């Protein structure tokens, strides 16, 4: 039983947390790809920028003496998401809309998004330095330890308060997005435009509005993902820049342009990364008593060493591109 609890602590919880963050980021990327047909690299900076906005708001609220039973990062999240959406709209207006108007190829937009990434990255580092910040400088990070001795386990089940909230908030966001895409007029218009932009336009859909809504959703979700990542670990300027590739991998594995695929892909990549570096010998230790002398399990039995954790996502990405380039759910193909 101890082994099972260890497995849940190390894989199920960590994988779910990582997977939700990847999924939230990947939804934005996949929506932008579906509507605007380009790979938006600056998404990482929408995430980091959103996290810094939430951090500033949280410090401001704390300075005003606001108290809440949940961490301040979650209290300010809705407000930060609004700011994140405005931020995303502003970037589109300032950098991508002029290029689109000129009829630039998607490749040009991709390179422009890398320029935007560098600019925002530079600005964030300029103002905040390259050190790291924590949301929990003024308040404690609650850690719940559930005693599992009733089930015969010597280890407790450990989960932190932000992790529980994170999984709940992600679930709410995903369900809300589902209802938006399937029930509302605008959501249906978005899906129609992702399927065929020209046909959507001639059937009277306001494509400019759809583009704006796409940026709003992508910006808000990116801000949410960034804030939650910063709540789980620490806030630093290259917070999301380091995980933008696994997020792209999640979007591609799920099928670019498919919102549900992005969720599945995010969770898949998150769990694959945690499973790959998981030390199996801790779980399989009881087998040592039955196995013969020459087949004893070694101390560490992980599929890949911990330092290669991020490469797991790329390997999955490359394999997906080779075997099924359209992703799990058939996305925009080559």
């Amino acid at each position, binding site marked *: 039983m101890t082994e099972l609890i260890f497995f849940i602590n190390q894989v199920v919880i960590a994988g779910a947390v990582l997977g939700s963050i990847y999924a939230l980021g990947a939804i934005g990327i996949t929506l932008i790809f579906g509507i605007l047909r380009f790979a938006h690299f600056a998404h990482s900076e929408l995430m980091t920028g959103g996290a810094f906005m939430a951090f500033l708001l949280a410090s401001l609220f704390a300075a005003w003496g606001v108290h809440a039973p949940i961490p301040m990062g979650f209290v300010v999240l809705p407000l930060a998401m609004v700011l994140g959406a405005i931020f995303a709209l502003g970037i589109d207006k300032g950098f991508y809309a002029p290029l689109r108007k000129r009829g630039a190829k*998607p490749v040009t937009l991709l*390179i422009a998004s890398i320029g935007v990434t*560098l*600019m925002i*990255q530079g600005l964030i580092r300029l103002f905040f330095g390259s050190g790291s910040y924590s949301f929990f400088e003024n308040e404690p990070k609650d850690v719940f330890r559930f005693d599992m001795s009733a089930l015969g386990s010597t280890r407790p089940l450990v989960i932190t308060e932000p992790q529980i909230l994170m999984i709940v908030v992600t679930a709410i966001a995903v369900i809300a997005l589902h209802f938006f895409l399937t029930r509302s007029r605008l959501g249906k218009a978005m899906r129609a435009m992702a399927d065929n932009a020209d046909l959507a336009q001639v059937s009277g859909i306001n494509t400019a509005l759809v583009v704006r809504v796409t940026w709003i959703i992508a910006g808000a979700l990116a801000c949410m993902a960034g804030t939650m990542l910063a709540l789980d670990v620490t806030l630093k300027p290259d917070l999301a820049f380091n995980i933008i*590739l696994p997020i792209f991998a999640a979007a591609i594995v799920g099928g670019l342009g498919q919102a549900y695929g992005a969720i599945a892909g995010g969770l898949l990549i998150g769990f694959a990364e945690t499973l790959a570096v998981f030390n199996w010998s801790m779980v399989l230790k009881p087998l040592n008593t039955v196995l013969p002398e020459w087949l004893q399990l070694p101390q560490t039995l992980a599929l890949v060493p911990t330092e290669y954790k991020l490469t797991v996502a790329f390997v999955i*990405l490359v394999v997906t591109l080779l075997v099924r380039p359209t992703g799990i759910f058939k996305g925009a193909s080559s």
Partner: protein
Amino acid sequence: MIRRSLTLFAGLFVLILVIGWFMGVPFTSSRLVEAAAYSLIAMGLNIQWGYGGLFNFGIMGFMMLGGVAVTFISYPVNPQFWGSDGPWMLGRALIAFGAGALLVIAARQSHRIGIRGGWKMALTVLAWFIGYCVYRSQIDPAAAYIEANAGFVGGLGAHPVLGWLFGGVLAAGVAYIVGKICLGLRTDYLAIATIGISEIIRALVKNMDWLTRGTLTVSPIPWPTPLPQDYQAGGMDAQTALLSARGGFLLLVLVIFAVAMFLISRAYAGPWGRMMRAIRDNHISAASMGKNVTARQLEIFVFGSVLMGIGGAILVSFVQINDPSSYQPINHTFLIWVMVIVGGAGNNWGAVFGAVLIWLVWIISDPLAQLLFGTISHWSGQIGWGEIPDIQSRASQMRIFVLGAVITIALRFAPRGLIPEVVRREG
């Protein structure tokens, strides 16, 4: 067009003189050697992107391969490694690798004995897994043994120029495999796949301590030309010795650069270049004319990567230290993209111009930002707003912003670059 390029190059020359005046000759001379190496790399990207329209965001990976290659070839021999069991254990790991590869190939051919569909898939996955386990079971103890007893495998002690060539060959080999895997993909996918592969290369080089010493870094890597110390031993004063040594190195790099430029310009002016332009502009119609698009794209991807490998090797030789943790996508991959886009994709001289210009801008934006911030801080301190804290570290981040601003402005106002491609129309 010629007049415009000449004016721009003359302006660049003046800029170099100005930098030399302010920052001193030793600083400028080493920046020039680096700029020459970056010109080679930018030319490599220009072949891939400007000629072939291929999206390579894995430049960092190819540069790292060059660095590893030159370290392995030119670093002095490590007798501790060759005297120990290390080579034997590595040999066994190599055999295990071969056995694993054979197993995978066999599984992939299993349809010949009537295993099809899902079963073949399962068998292939199983073969990969077994091959991986067999390889790991041999390489892990070998790596631990070498790291404990000999540090790392050391080098071969050969001439660094051989190392540069080997860097090109290694990059070509990896580019062939990468190209085989990725070149069928559409542009966005290709960009992401190549970034992924360069990150895999970075993780490997950083963590294979037995081969590259990882974060412990390898130094000093020998120069192909005499070092300043050698000149000083011959009775020169320090300044002249430094300049002669760097001058010699620069000359060697320029010779390689000239050879590469000559070969590429000749090839591009000929039928091969016309075919490449046709494929880039419309690969469907090129394919319908009987051109083997995938094979040609693979060819051009490998050629470009060779230059990147050589350039990366030259940079490592020049700074004399191979530090895998100093490689960053921003400083290596994206910087070179900015060079090619600003200079002019599809025009070799444009790419070279962009390389030198952007490298100088990248270098001097740090001291310039220091100066600017110092002034602002002094001014804000005087009017009572307080001075800016830790200017030093903040100002050095400024160049990332400058790079981003340059790329967005260039795309907006000069999308074809400062020295654009010249399209000759016959007849």
